[in-house]
């Protein structure tokens, strides 16, 4: 089956949905499917596609925009779909999907949109607009609540699917970095420095932790960049935390920079199925994460880490303190997390579920061109 993944590709570092699409395409290729990538601009995404030897094309002007489909872009997409003889279109960002869906509908090729977080859900007007211009597509939600919410936007229930995220299993024998002192793990946080990632909550959690632990407070390393970087640096300065928090900029694989005995913090206010938690699980890392998206399903009890309410500074400090105590007393067993990842959240499992959806869409009656 020939699948075209449509991704915005506008950033200087791969975004979560771009990484998802690339991982999925890699797994599909391994399963004998033929994935292709279409993006809006040259850059790091194209480079990543070439490294993985995926056919890739640029359709100029295809960029995130909540605007009605533009004819020039639709025609550019149709040419690419035709030249690849596409059998299915898979969109990965709602703000670029409208053009991709319109082009798919015109050519009669089935189309599916993965909904990554509830930004799309919150903007109900987006689905109103798709409905107003008569676009037809199916949607894959990465978490159960999005799946339920999508039903409220008048999307036919039969066109809605739920497939949790999946990540690669580290190859057998992979050796992770070891912490210098197994009783003093460091903390690691990776993500865009924007509000909804809750980095400010983590910084304030560190202020509270320092207040409680004094000189025993661990250090926090933050990987990422974004429009709130300056604000966060000011916050760290005025809260006098410069000695325990450092920014190291964006990293394509931040977990490879830390020991598997370090603690991952995921402090987001909003997420769908954050793959970094699954990646940390696959390495047996302890995790403290906010109760957003699919997180409570990923980390169902204290053996895997701590799940805390989003936007609570005291709860974050409590969880870190308690998990540090578990680790120090040898109560944290990394193998439990590794096993859970293997049984629930592998990339192969996700690719298998998505292929089942593709088959269903392929068997449905072809769309009549608009």
């Amino acid at each position, binding site marked *: 089956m020939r699948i075209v993944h449509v991704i915005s590709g506008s950033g200087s570092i791969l975004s979560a949905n771009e990484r998802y699409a690339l991982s999925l395409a890699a797994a599909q290729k391994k399963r004998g499917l033929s994935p292709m990538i279409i993006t809006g601009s040259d850059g790091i995404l194209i480079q990543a596609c070439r490294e993985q030897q995926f056919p890739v094309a640029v359709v100029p002007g295809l960029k995130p925009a*909540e*605007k*009605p489909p533009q004819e020039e872009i639709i025609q550019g997409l149709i040419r690419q779909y035709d030249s690849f003889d596409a059998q299915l279109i898979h969109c990965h960002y709602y703000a670029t999907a409208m053009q991709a869906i319109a082009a798919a509908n015109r050519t009669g090729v089935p189309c599916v949109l993965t909904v990554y977080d509830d930004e799309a859900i919150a*903007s*109900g*007007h987006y689905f*109103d*607009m798709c409905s*107003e*211009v008569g676009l037809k597509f199916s949607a894959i939600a990465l978490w159960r609540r999005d799946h339920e919410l999508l039903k*409220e*936007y*008048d999307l036919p229930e039969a066109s809605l699917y739920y497939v949790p995220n999946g990540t690669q299993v580290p190859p057998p024998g992979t050796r992770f970095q070891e912490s210098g002192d197994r009783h003093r793990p460091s903390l690691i946080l990776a993500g865009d420095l924007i*509000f909804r990632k809750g980095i*400010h909550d983590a910084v*304030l*959690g560190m*202020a*509270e932790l320092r*207040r409680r632990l004094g000189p025993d407070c661990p250090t926090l390393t933050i990987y990422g960049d974004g429009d*709130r970087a*300056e*604000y966060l640096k*000011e*916050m760290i300065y*005025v*809260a006098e935390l410069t000695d325990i928090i450092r920014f190291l900029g964006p990293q394509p694989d931040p977990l490879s920079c830390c020991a598997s005995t370090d603690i991952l913090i995921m402090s987001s206010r909003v997420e769908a199925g954050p793959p970094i938690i699954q990646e940390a699980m696959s390495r047996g890392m302890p995790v403290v994460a906010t109760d957003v998206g699919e997180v409570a399903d990923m980390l169902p009890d204290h053996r895997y880490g701590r799940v805390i309410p989003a*936007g*609570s*500074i*005291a709860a974050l*400090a409590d969880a870190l303190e308690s998990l540090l105590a578990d680790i120090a007393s040898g109560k944290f067993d990394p193998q439990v997390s590794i096993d859970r990842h293997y049984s629930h959240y592998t990339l192969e499992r996700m690719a298998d579920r998505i292929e089942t959806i593709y088959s269903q869409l392929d068997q449905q009656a072809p769309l009549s061109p608009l």
Partner: protein
Amino acid sequence: MRIAHVIIAAGNEIGANRDDMQGLGRHVLNLAVAQKVRGLNPVLISNASAERPLVEALQGEGIPVVIMPSAHLQPNQTAKDQTAKDLAAQIEKFNVQLIHCHNLNGVRVAVPMANQIGIPCVLTVHRNSRSISILYEAAKRQGLKFSMICVSRRERDSLRESGISEADLYYVPNGTRSLPVHQLPEPHYPDLTLVGRIILIKGVDVAILAMAELRRRLGPDVPVLNVYGVDPSGNYFREMVHAVGLDDIVRFHGFKLDVIEHCDSRDILVMPSRSETGPIVVLEAMSRGMPIVATEVGEVTEMLPDPRYGRVVRPDSVVALADGIESLLKDISDGHFDPSLVIERHRSRYTVEKMAEDVETVYKQVLVNNNPY
């Protein structure tokens, strides 16, 4: 002229807190009361999410309020259709000649119905939102029409650049009534006052962190920050104050009506928002000659064009806000701040009477455009 002010809030929408009254509610209250004084007949039509203090204040002024039984709390078409039917019934019952919407949900529900029966619709843009141009485009494709009043020039320019026709855009800055100057006779070291919903977009976190910076600079001379407003986050900002050790100088007082009217007019208003259009609280403070430190958002630089009126600082910057407050405190202690200048600027540009007159001019234009014959 019978005007229906329409606010249809969704259950999860900011502004749907029933025991709160935000800038939008204060604007509607000010405008409707002034319209009544001018001989128009305003009515508020809203739903179950209407702000209770707004409803009570309007009723206290003898302005009819209709709370529709259908609560448009779900985003599906059935709920929208039912709300539109209920709204149409009220429009007919009150013999409404013009619908004035104050949020996007109101437009979604009112415009298709109003266009069908030939009643013009106006939307006041209270929040800068990219959704507005999308909504406008979608309406245009369906042959629907509505006009917009922007309370900030910046918002009007931005909407014009997004492709909205100039003929559908009007600019009328917000206006407030003139509040009495109130100060106790004894000498007063100014406190800082912050009024608004306690959420990140309002920059409450920036103000709290600026207090940490001010304490570092001023030591025991640091002023107290009094924060008034509903806190939908629960305990987040209190936890923040505790974590950075500011419990003694940052105080939360919850929502109180008319805070600006009752505080000492020598206190400093801090407006640290990350986004605003035409912040009512700044105008209320101006009307009493209060010194103001506000972020450069929406209409603020028009309101406070130079340091004689206060300080306008970069949004989202802790250090810039601390600098602004420190420098204004110094102006005040040196006797360089003159409240009468601020009062005069409010009186000449931002009174509720001026706003109501300008809005009425827009109504007349919209009515002519709607029925040119």
